[in-house]
């Protein structure tokens, strides 16, 4: 909900208060020596590579920062605990990270995991910054003052998708929706349905992605002009392959932003992936177009030098960008009157307006004490199968005006 927070959740400084915390003193205590960022994420199982890349990206960026003197002398450290994508273990991990490792900031990967830990982490007043989830629930500042999400909320993304579609199909069109049967997929699907309400777009088929082949055949039968994939990572490739095999080539195919990696998710599908559209907010280091971008060259150099072994993977870039965002917060917190503390970090996180260098120019990450905007602008891209690369398909679309 973007309805804004009520005033009483703001503290004296107008942003956030530690009064409700189990241990208010801990929240305001100054952080010295090292600032620990604790992760609970699936470093084993099918998502291990993705998670590993995010963390490598973050660690590389932190290493660079530490070399440059850290946050005013405070070193950054990452502590990772495996939750195997299991909410129970995430809950236990976060408890342990807070109580036993004494972390100052948390992060998690996946909506189910975030659900399982949010209450505990809010009660303990340990900021959970840039959670890797796209469900809208954690934009609710009143209920989750100590939690922010990194990924664009699914409804925001879908709103932008529909903006783009309106331009291409001013008189509307028919849409087929493929829905991943997880929290994340359902978030996208709900977001899309909400966004097309009152427009001329008509959803003529909705199929769950349990078996991509069956789904593809049924979606094809709808004869829709547009295919929207409310999917999660590997679904994107599977769906592309499946529609290729049933011989369906919709006019427009929209992939979710979490399917940003060309090499693993588009290239293998060959011709079938050609022309698919996606919204991006990150510069793509694998894309020739960014070869001369100073941020990208620096990123490639530094990340590789600091142990990230697949720097062009989009998850690595995400990890790096999240680290950038965190560092921005930490610096501002450290420079605040209260000095570097969990509370000041959270205050900084709630008052952020920053473009990490790896964000596409014109896209910033924004937070206000009353509204959690996050990423509100995207640049559309399409996949060029022949050139095996994404190509720009338009200007940055910014919908932040809708949220003011």
């Amino acid at each position, binding site marked *: 909900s973007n309805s804004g927070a009520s005033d009483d959740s703001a503290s004296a400084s107008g942003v956030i208060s530690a009064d409700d915390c189990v241990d208010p003193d801990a929240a305001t205590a100054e952080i010295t020596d090292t600032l620990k960022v604790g992760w609970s994420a699936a470093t084993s199982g099918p998502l291990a590579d993705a998670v590993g890349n995010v963390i490598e990206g973050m660690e590389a960026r932190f290493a660079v920062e530490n070399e440059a003197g850290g946050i005013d002398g405070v070193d950054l450290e990452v502590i990772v605990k495996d939750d195997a994508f299991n909410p129970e273990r995430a809950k236990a991990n976060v408890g342990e990270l807070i109580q036993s490792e004494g972390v100052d900031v948390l992060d998690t990967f996946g909506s189910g995991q975030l659900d399982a830990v949010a209450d505990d982490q809010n009660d303990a007043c340990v900021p959970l910054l840039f959670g890797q989830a796209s469900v809208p629930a954690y934009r609710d500042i009143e209920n989750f003052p100590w939690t922010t999400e990194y990924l664009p909320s699914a409804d925001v993304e879908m709103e932008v998708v529909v903006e783009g579609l309106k331009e291409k199909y001013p008189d509307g069109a028919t849409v087929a929706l493929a829905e991943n049967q997880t929290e994340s997929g359902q978030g996208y699907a709900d977001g899309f349905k909400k966004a097309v309400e009152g427009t001329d777009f008509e959803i003529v088929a909705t199929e769950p992605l349990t078996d991509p082949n069956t789904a593809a055949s*049924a979606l094809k039968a709808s004869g829709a002009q547009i295919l929207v994939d409310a999917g999660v990572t590997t679904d994107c490739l599977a769906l592309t392959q499946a529609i290729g095999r049933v*011989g369906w080539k919709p006019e427009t195919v929209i992939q979710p932003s979490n399917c940003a990696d060309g090499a693993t998710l588009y290239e293998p599908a060959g011709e079938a992936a050609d022309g698919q559209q996606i919204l991006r907010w990150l510069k793509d280091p694998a894309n020739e177009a960014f070869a001369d971008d100073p941020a990208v060259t620096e990123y490639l150099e530094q990340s590789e030098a600091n142990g990230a072994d697949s720097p062009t993977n989009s998850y690595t870039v995400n990890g790096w960008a999240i680290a950038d965002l965190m560092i921005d917060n930490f610096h501002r917190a450290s420079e605040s009157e209260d000095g570097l503390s969990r509370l000041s970090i959270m205050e900084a996180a709630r008052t952020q307006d920053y473009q990490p260098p790896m964000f596409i120019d014109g896209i910033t990450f924004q937070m206000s004490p009353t509204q959690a905007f996050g990423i509100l602008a995207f640049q559309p891209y399409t996949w060029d199968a022949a050139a095996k690369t994404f190509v720009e398909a338009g200007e940055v679309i910014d919908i932040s005006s809708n949220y003011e």
Partner: protein
Amino acid sequence: MELFLERLIIGLTNGSVYALLALALVVVFRGTGTLNFAQGELALFTTFIAWWLTTESFPVWIAIVAALLTGFVLGAMIERMLIRPVQRRNDMAVLIVALGLFTGLNSLAGVIWGSETKIMPSLFPNGLDDYVSLAGARLYYDALTVWGALIVLLVLMTLLFRHTKLGLHMRAVADNSESATLAGVRTSRILAVGWGLSGAIGALAGVLVTPLAAEQLGLTTMFHIFIAASAAALFGGLDSLVGAVVGGITIGVLEAMLTGYVSFIGGALQQTSALFIIVAILFVRPNGLFGTKRVVRV
């Protein structure tokens, strides 16, 4: 019509995949009297080996042969080193060993090759244009290969069990291994061969399936297939080769048709509906469609 054929083809293809793995399960069951819960992950592991060999620029067919051999050796070794020592003592313990293998093999594949999705090349042309058109529906060659492999395997295994001494001995060991040993059957070799065979069949299933599975080759590829395959094997009667094939195909087609035509069910209840139909049929035939009823006399 086109849609129906399309669904039918998808169902048959998915079904043959289930059937292949179900055959592997039946072979172990008929040869040793146990259900191998690690069958799917074993197949996955050997498929990863095949994939890895192709990335080392071995031809696909060599990779596949190597996978089959590895499957055989791994299967036999697992039986001898891990299953047999506990089987003598406790049946439930075998289940846990298999679960340990399940986690262990899957994670090991992750350790060695990472969790990213892999693209396993196909032995046969499998481009987007390599199909024959059936009233508008596309029948791809690689799907045909799977059907073909399934039929060949079914015939071979039937011959093995019906007409060879090895097959007779496998059935004897599965029935009562102590009694078979007493008759002079080399039980330990038979057990190892049974598991080896099923390991190889599983590997075959893996290498044929992944190129045409939309999900490609990832750490989770085999799980759903394994669930469906065990349902298929049980549905068919657990000790019946034909049953496994009929079971696999039935589940595949049921899934495709129910999802396609029964809008209330839709894809969301795909597995549920297929499994419950099977349970309903089990009510009528508690030993599966083709299973032999165990005679229990008092």
